[in-house]
């Protein structure tokens, strides 16, 4: 489903994307495009982006994540970003970027509960 190294899994009606690689310029666009193509192909009701594996989220990566959520929303799919670590949350807010408009949850289970089901 993915041309890159980012695993995209189906979980019930939803897609679960696990971000592990650092999303620098060269892979960020490919990440977004892979995710959107998978959303279209599967008709996923919701999109979960798991960032538990990221120990650093700078303003660039934060922007890539929130843009991805906006893109999915235009296609009609809700996004929840899950697994933002305490130190990452603190850093983002101190920098003045609290990812406005993005829904978040503690973990994948909580995130799944926030998404609508197609059925």
């Amino acid at each position, binding site marked *: 489903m993915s041309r890159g190294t980012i695993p995209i899994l189906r979980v019930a009606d939803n897609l679960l994307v696990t971000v592990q690689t650092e999303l620098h310029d060269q892979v960020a666009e490919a990440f977004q495009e892979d995710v959107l193509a998978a959303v279209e192909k599967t008709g996923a009701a919701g999109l979960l982006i798991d960032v538990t594996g990221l120990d650093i989220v700078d303003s660039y990566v934060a922007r890539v994540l929130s843009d991805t959520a906006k893109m999915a929303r235009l296609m009609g799919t809700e996004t929840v970003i899950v697994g933002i670590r305490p130190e*990452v949350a*603190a*850093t983002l807010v*101190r920098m003045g970027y609290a990812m406005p408009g993005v829904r978040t949850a503690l973990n994948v289970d909580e995130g799944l509960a926030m998404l609508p089901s197609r059925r």
Partner: protein
Amino acid sequence: MTIRVLNRDEMAVETEHDVVTVRRKAQAVAHGRGLSTFAIAAITTAASELARNVLAHARRGTASVEAVAADGRSGVRMVFRDDGPGIADLPRALAGGYSTARSLGLGLSGSRRLVDEFEIETAPGKGTVVTVIKWARF
């Protein structure tokens, strides 16, 4: 305050990959200096923002990551240096939310909020030097 430099790493900042290298070095040194998880995330994120600025606005430059000590405190100092265009309107660039590139404009203002000491030397045509320090808490 006298700052002693215990160790210094100089790195080129010329590619995306260099940004990752600088970030990792900052993280490792901060960890080695006994900073908390939160302080490590803060200084590592600042490293990422400031190295990216060198790349984005000056194309190339250098980053130095130092293990420092002062008054019995242990910390990390980083210096980002470039010979790029410099910053004409510094107050505006530091205010945040202003960007001449296609980004958020939070790199400078955000980094400043994440560190304990922040200094910037710049003038149009004279390049930019940003120096930051993060101290371990007692």
